[in-house]
C-alpha cells in the first residue's frame, strides 16, 4: 500500500489530466476525457437540472402562495417536505426507470418530484411568516386578495422561497449524477462507467460534480441575497 497522501496526489493529478486531455478508453477503441467531452456532459447535467428546477418552480410556487395566503394546508405543506426529504433519490430514479422508462424526459420528471417539496414548503412558510399586522394593514387599505399576494406576501416571501429553490437545485444537481443509470449522459457517467474512463476519469467526475454543485449553491445564495427586499436588510 502506498502512503495515502502520496496516492492522493498522484490520483488527483491524474484526474486533472483526464479533464484537460483526451486519452484512450480503458476498454480500448475510442478516446475519452478532455475538455470537449467534459463540457458536453456538464451541459447535459445543467440542462437536466435546469429543466427540473424550472418545472418544479412553476408547479410549487403558485401552490405555496395560495396555501400560504389562505393559511390552509399547514399539515400538507409540512408533511410533503418531510416525506419529500425522506424519499431516496436513487429509489425515485429507479422507480421511474422500472415503471416509466429511461431517457431525458423521465429522469427530468423524477427530478421534478424531488425538487418540489422544498420549494413548496419554503414558499408556504415564507408567506406564513409575513407579519399578520402588515397584511391586516394592507387589507385595511383596500388591497384586494390578489394585490395582497402580489404586493406584500410575494415580495416578503421571496427570500425564503429562493432558499427552497436553492436547496432543491443542490439536491437535483447531486441526483442528476446518477442519471446515466437511466440513459442520460451527465457528469455522473465519468463516475458510473469507470471501466470506460478509468479511475482518473471517475475521480475527475467526482471533482467536476462537486465543483458544479458548489457553483450552483453559490449562485443561488447570491440570487437569494439579491431578491430579498432591501427594507429587510437595512440595519436599524
Amino acid at each position, binding site marked *: 500500500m502506498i502512503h495515502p497522501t502520496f496516492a492522493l496526489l498522484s490520483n488527483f493529478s491524474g484526474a486533472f489530466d483526464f479533464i484537460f486531455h483526451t486519452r484512450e478508453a480503458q476498454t480500448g477503441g475510442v478516446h475519452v476525457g478532455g475538455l470537449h467531452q467534459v463540457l458536453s456532459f456538464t451541459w447535459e447535467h445543467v440542462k437536466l437540472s435546469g429543466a427540473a428546477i424550472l418545472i418544479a418552480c412553476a408547479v410549487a410556487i403558485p401552490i405555496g402562495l395560495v396555501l400560504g395566503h389562505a393559511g390552509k394546508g399547514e399539515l400538507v405543506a409540512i408533511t410533503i417536505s418531510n416525506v419529500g426529504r425522506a424519499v431516496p433519490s436513487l429509489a425515485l430514479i429507479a422507480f421511474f426507470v422500472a415503471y416509466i422508462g429511461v431517457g431525458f424526459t423521465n429522469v427530468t420528471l423524477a427530478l421534478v418530484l424531488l425538487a418540489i417539496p422544498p420549494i413548496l414548503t419554503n414558499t408556504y412558510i415564507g408567506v406564513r411568516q409575513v407579519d399578520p399586522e*402588515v397584511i391586516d394593514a394592507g*387589507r*385595511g387599505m*383596500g388591497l384586494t386578495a390578489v394585490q395582497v399576494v402580489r404586493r406584500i406576501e410575494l415580495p*416578503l416571501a421571496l427570500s425564503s422561497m429562493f432558499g427552497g429553490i436553492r436547496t432543491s437545485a443542490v439536491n437535483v444537481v447531486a441526483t442528476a449524477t446518477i442519471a446515466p443509470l437511466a440513459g442520460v449522459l451527465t457528469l455522473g457517467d465519468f463516475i458510473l462507467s469507470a471501466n470506460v474512463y478509468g479511475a482518473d476519469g471517475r475521480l475527475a467526475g467526482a471533482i467536476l460534480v462537486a465543483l458544479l454543485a458548489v457553483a450552483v449553491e453559490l449562485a443561488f445564495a447570491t440570487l437569494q441575497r439579491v431578491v430579498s427586499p432591501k427594507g429587510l436588510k437595512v440595519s436599524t
Partner: protein
Amino acid sequence: MAGDRAATTGTAASVEFRQATKRYRGQDAPAIQSLTLEVPAGDICVLVGPSGCGKTTALRLVNRMIELTDGDILLDGQSIRKRPAAELRRGIGYVIQQVGLFPHLTIGENIGTVPRLLGWDRQRIAERVNELLELVSLPDDLRDRYPAQLSGGQRQRVGVARALAADPPVMLMDEPFGAIDPINRERLQNQFLRLQAEIRKTILFVTHDIDEAIKMGDRVAVLRKGGVLAQYATPPELLMHPADDFVEDFVGADRALKRLSLLRVRDVDLWKAPLAHAGRPTADVRAALAEADVPHPLLIDSEGRPVGWLSERDLAHDTVPETPDTAAEPIVELDDIVRDALSDLLRSDTQYGPVVDEHGRVAGVLSVELISHFLSSSRATEQAMGPAERVAS
C-alpha cells in the same frame, strides 16, 4: 401647496352605527351587541372600555375587515353593506396599534400605496407624499428610508400619514399610541390633536386608557364587556354624570379633577378684584370692597400688573401704600389649565389668585371656591375645550 393643503382639510363624513351586532363564529356571546351611536362629521369619537369589550371589533366592522352579523353602519347616510369591501376600505384611513408598515417598501412607497391603487400619476403621488410628510412634521429626507430605520414615534406618524394618503373622510385608529411609552405618548397625542385641528376628519379612536379617551375625544363611547354601550357622551358629561356605577368606576374617583384638566382659566367667569392703585385714597377702595367677591383689595401698578393684596392694616392709612403686606401669589394666567391653577392655589396658602392676561394685566381673580362653584354649574360642560384647543398652547 395651499391648494394641496386644501385637499387634506377637505372631506369628512358622519359615521352611524345602527343596531350593529357582531357574533363571532363559534362564540355564543356577541362581541358587539346592537350598538347604536352617531359620530358627527369632523369629530373624534373615542371607543373606550376594558380589554376584550369589543372595541377593535366595533372598529373593524366599519371598514368591513369583519362583516356585520346584524344591523348596519352608515357612512354619510350610505350603508357600508352596499359597497365592495376593497373599494370601501380605500375610502377609510386605518391605523392599527402595531402600525403595520410594509417593511419592504420605503416610507414614500408606504404612504403612496393607496394613491397608487387609485391610479394617480407618479407626479401627483410624489407631491402628496411630500405634503403628508410635512403634515405629520417628518423631514422629507425620510421618504427613501425603510421602516426599520425609523424610531417608534416616527413610524407611528408614517402610519397616520399613510392612512391619510387618499384624504379619506373617515379614519379608524386602534390604540394608535398603545405601544409607546408614556412620555413620548403624550407628545404624539398632542401632535395628533394639532393635526386634527387642521384636517378635521371624522375619527374613530380606540383606547383602553380613560385619560387618553378624555383627552382625545369630542365624544367618548364607553363599552362594557359584551360590546354593550354603557354611555356615549362628551368628556365633561361623562365625568359629571356617569351613566352608572360601571362608568363611574371606569372614569375613576378623581373625575372632578379630571374634568378640570379640560378647562382653561379663561373659561371660568372670574371674580372681579377690587383694584387699588398706590397713592389713591383708601376710602374709594373700601367702597369698592363692598360689592366685591373678594374680601381683600388687589394693589396693581400703573400697567395694571398685580402687586399684592392689601390687608386691613394697609387700609388703615388714608392712601394706599406702595408695598402691600402679602404678595399677589400665585399668579394665574388666562391660558392655564384650571387643574394646574387649582394645584397652585392649594400649594400657596391663599384662597385667591389674581389672573392675568398675556400682557400680565389683571383680568380677574380665581379662587378654589369659584372653581368648585363653576364645576357644579352646568356651564363647565359647554365651556369645556374640544380636544384640538387643549393643545393650542
